[in-house]
């Protein structure tokens, strides 16, 4: 099957180095301390952050830093078939752990001892790249909640099909069986916090693909910064003097 046409267009009409359209919205869940909806093309994810608040399970309380809990779920209606996914299934647990470790690297937990921060992420529409969209949405929600972070975390995926590195795979390209590299970076500090790949790639091609994904992350970071800045300005203006 041809994923990149001879003219250089992908199945959905994008160029190989082109990302899908990004859209972010803050404040979707009014009861949460911070929340965000993040869309990458057709993939739509909602994140809600509660905290810092009192630790619910006293035995897990840490005296010098905050406890971070993360839960990833996919809605029944998110994929093509309406599937009831069990809560603790392996993929959800793995992605929850991945998101938790990624966010823990950037949240300044030592500023909020003996408290707990809950991050809930739910996929509303799944079209490839859900992991990246979840991390981006969680970053937005944490910034919305006013939780101190040393840097934004952004994430993007890239793949390699028909001998071309492709940025931001959608579901069809993802299920083609080619390699899928997910990268999460801290844009300002220029550090990598998440790097996952399935399938195999030779080293030199891997470098290219990872470089492409990193550039995608930086583009997402610019967009997220703009959205947050706009939101802050709006809130401050409304509040008045």
């Amino acid at each position: 099957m041809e994923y990149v046409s001879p003219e250089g267009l992908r199945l959905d009409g994008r160029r190989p180095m082109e990302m899908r359209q990004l859209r972010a919205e803050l404040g979707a869940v009014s009861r949460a301390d911070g929340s965000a909806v993040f869309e990458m093309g057709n993939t739509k994810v909602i994140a809600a952050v509660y905290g810092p608040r009192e630790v619910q399970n006293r035995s897990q309380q840490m005296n010098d830093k905050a406890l971070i809990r993360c839960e990833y779920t996919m809605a029944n209606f998110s994929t093509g078939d309406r599937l009831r996914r069990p809560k603790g299934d392996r993929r959800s647990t793995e992605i929850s752990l991945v998101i938790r470790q990624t966010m823990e690297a950037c949240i300044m937990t030592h500023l909020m001892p003996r408290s707990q921060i809950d991050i809930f992420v739910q996929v509303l529409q799944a079209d490839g790249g859900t992991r990246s969209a979840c991390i981006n949405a969680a970053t937005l929600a944490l910034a919305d909640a006013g939780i101190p972070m040393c840097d934004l975390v952004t994430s993007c995926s890239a793949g390699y099909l028909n001998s071309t590195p492709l940025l931001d795979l959608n579901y069809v390209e993802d299920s083609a069986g080619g390699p899928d590299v997910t990268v999460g970076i801290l844009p300002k500090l220029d550090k990598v916090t998440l790097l996952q790949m399935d399938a195999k790639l030779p080293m030199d091609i891997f470098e290219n693909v990872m470089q492409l994904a990193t550039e995608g992350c930086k583009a997402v970071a610019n967009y997220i910064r703009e959205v947050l800045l706009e939101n802050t300005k709006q809130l401050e203006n409304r509040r008045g003097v």
Partner: protein
Amino acid sequence: MRGMELSLNHTQKLRLQRALESLESFSSATNSNASVTVADSIPVNQEDGVLKGHGTTDLDGEVVATVCGVIERVNKLVYVRTLRARYKPEVGDIIVGRVLEVAPKRWRLEINFSQDAVLMLSSMNLPDGIQRRRTAVDELNMRSIFEENDVVCAEVRDFMRDGSLQLQARSQKYGKLEKGQMLTISPYLVKRRKQHFHHLEQYGIDLILGCNGFIWVGEHVEIKDDMIEDEPTPTKPDAKSNKSQISQSLEEQEQTYTPLETRENICRIANAIRVLSTLGFSITLDVILEIVDLSTKKGLDIHEMLGAEFCVLVAEKEAERRSSSTQKKR
């Protein structure tokens, strides 16, 4: 807009947009330049020694923001003031909280902070008003003072070593709040002022703007002043207040009955605060009273205050108010 999902028709959307745009034009230019997001570097004059305050961190000699907010500079101190974060307590703040748990010699209150606040039994006036050492009997009777889910008004005394708050409620104006509503709004909308307790005479209502974003609107209660010595210490009312609510006789129930008009006023003021918090305008006594007047002038029912039309009216009124205040400054 958070909080209420309003279905605005086309003209209402346009009016709201126009009102909000005119609000933005009144905000000073310095304000908009001072907004930062996470990992934005803060422009700092490197020659002066700069004190890095809350919301900032040092990155290779550069001062970088760790939260989204507005930069504030006070002499050499630079800090980032967050907007939608949880309550940041300071000693002496008046707060309103809800009792979560009755623990040995203390109550734990929920106050929209990263940990629960603690109100020690020794920081609370005993019902008989005598200053004495708290005995084991007092500890067993804690539940007669506050129980779970009671709304309490207190003041921040200090911070404990683990970062949680210690409260005190030693004056007569603090204590259990009854016969009213507690509202939850974002703490950044309540500014620290000299007066947080407001008694609205024309409605007969007490309004407490807690610094933690919890607001109490309730029927006015006469505060008995402890300090006045020539008042005879009443023994009968104390005995009555010690009785639990369940065993109140019919006469007492009649005494504690709140008239319908007061209840309507409580709801009106509470709805005014809800509309203001949805739109994100700061909450002060003048603004609340203006909005309540606006609703009575327009003859709106109390439940209509939460509707789309009133929301747009409030936004327009606020735009008017800010334009007139900036004109007065000029």
